[in-house]
C-alpha cells in the first residue's frame, strides 16, 4: 500500500511535465504562479516576471485574460522579458501570440488558492489522536 502511494506521488510531477512539453513552438514562463487568499487577505499584490522564447524570430505579444490589449509586443525578437505589477484575486492566464494572430503559442496560468471557501465544514478539525494536520 505504501509503495502504491509513493509510486503515484512520484509519477504525478512526471505526468505534469509531460503535459507541459507539448508546446514547443514557443515557451512562456511566469513567476510566481500561485497566490493564496482568504477572507482577511482577499488579494495578492504581486510582481510577475514573464519570460518567453520562440523558435523563430518574429513579432510576438504577451497578453493576459485581464487586459483587452496586449501587455507588450516585441518586433524581430526570439525572446522577451516583461514585469507586470498586478493585484490578483482570481485565477487568470498569460499567453503569447503573434500580434494580430490570436492563436496562442504558449500560455501560463496564475492560480489563486482560496483558504476559506464557502463551505465552513472544509475547515473543521477532527480530533483523532493521529490527526496532526
Amino acid at each position, binding site marked *: *500500500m*505504501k509503495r*502504491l*502511494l*509513493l509510486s*503515484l*506521488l512520484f509519477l*504525478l510531477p512526471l505526468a505534469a511535465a509531460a503535459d507541459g512539453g507539448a508546446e514547443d513552438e514557443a515557451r512562456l514562463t511566469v513567476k*510566481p*504562479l*500561485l497566490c*493564496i*487568499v*482568504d*477572507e*482577511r*487577505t482577499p488579494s495578492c499584490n504581486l510582481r510577475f516576471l514573464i519570460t518567453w522564447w520562440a523558435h523563430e524570430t518574429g513579432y510576438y505579444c504577451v497578453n493576459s485574460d485581464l487586459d483587452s490589449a496586449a501587455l507588450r509586443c516585441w518586433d524581430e525578437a526570439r525572446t522577451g522579458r516583461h514585469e507586470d505589477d498586478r493585484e490578483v484575486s482570481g485565477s487568470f492566464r498569460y499567453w503569447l501570440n503573434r500580434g494580430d494572430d490570436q492563436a496562442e503559442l504558449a500560455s501560463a496560468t496564475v*492560480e489563486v*488558492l482560496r*483558504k*476559506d471557501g464557502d*463551505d*465552513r*465544514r*472544509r*475547515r*473543521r*478539525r*477532527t*480530533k*483523532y*489522536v*493521529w*490527526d*496532526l*494536520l
Partner: protein
Amino acid sequence: MKRLIPCLLLLLPAFAAAESPWRLGVAMGYGERSNPLLNSDDLPIVVDLDIAYFGKHFFFDNGDVGLTFADNDRVTASVMARVRSDRVFFGRSNTRFVNIGSTGQSLESPTEITVPDRDYAAEAGVELLSDGRWGYLQLNAFHDISGTHNGYEFDLDYGVGFRAGLWYLRPSFGLSYKSAALNDYYWGVRPSEANEALPAYEAGAGVNTRVRLSANYFFSRNWQLNLSAEYERLNDEAAGSPIVTDQAVLGYFAGFGYRF
C-alpha cells in the same frame, strides 16, 4: 480501507474538478504524538491521509460523519457521529515488573504493572461552526452512544489564518471539558485492575487545554510542505492517575503533502 484508497486514487481526475464535493490528500513525512501513559511508546505518524466528502447536507470527514441541518451567513450546524480514538494510547503500552509499591514500600516479589485496556467509543453530538475576519470557531458536544464510557465532552476550538507570501500559518487553541464518566473510563484504575504497585484511582471531570500551530508552504495548488506542532495539557484529574506519567501531550509533524 486498503482497497478503498487505491480505488479513490484511480478516480482522481474526477475529484480534481472544481467545486468537487471530495477533498482528498496525502501527506508523508515524520511526526510523533507523545503518549502520556505509564510504560508506553509514543505514536509515530508517517502518513496522514485526508479523505473527506462534503455534500449539501451529508458529509464525511476522515472518520467523522455529519448531517448539516442549518447553514447561513453566521453559522453551520450539524448532527455528528464519530469514534473516540483515545484507545490508541492504550494499545502502545508495555508491561513492567517493579519491586517498589505505589506508596514507596518494598514489595515481597516483583509485581506487574500493566496499563489497563480500554476500548474505542462511538459518540454522537452536535457541531457549530462559525467564521469571519476574526477567525474561525468550532463548538462540539458529544455523548457516548456505545455504552463504552457513558460520558460526554464539550469542545471549543478557535483559530485564525495568516498569509505570508506562499506560507499559510494557522495558530489555534482549544478547550475540552470531559465529564467524570469519560475521564474515569480512560484514566481511572478500577479496583479489579489495581494491585500493590498500581493503586485504584477514580478520575473526576476536567478541562484539557491545547494550542497548535500549523504552517503550510505551497509549492503549487497541489504540492505543499506541512509543518505542525501541538501541545495539549491533560486535565488534573487525568494527570493525577497512576497510569499517567506526563500531563503534557506533545505532537509534531513535518512532511510533504499532495492535495488532489
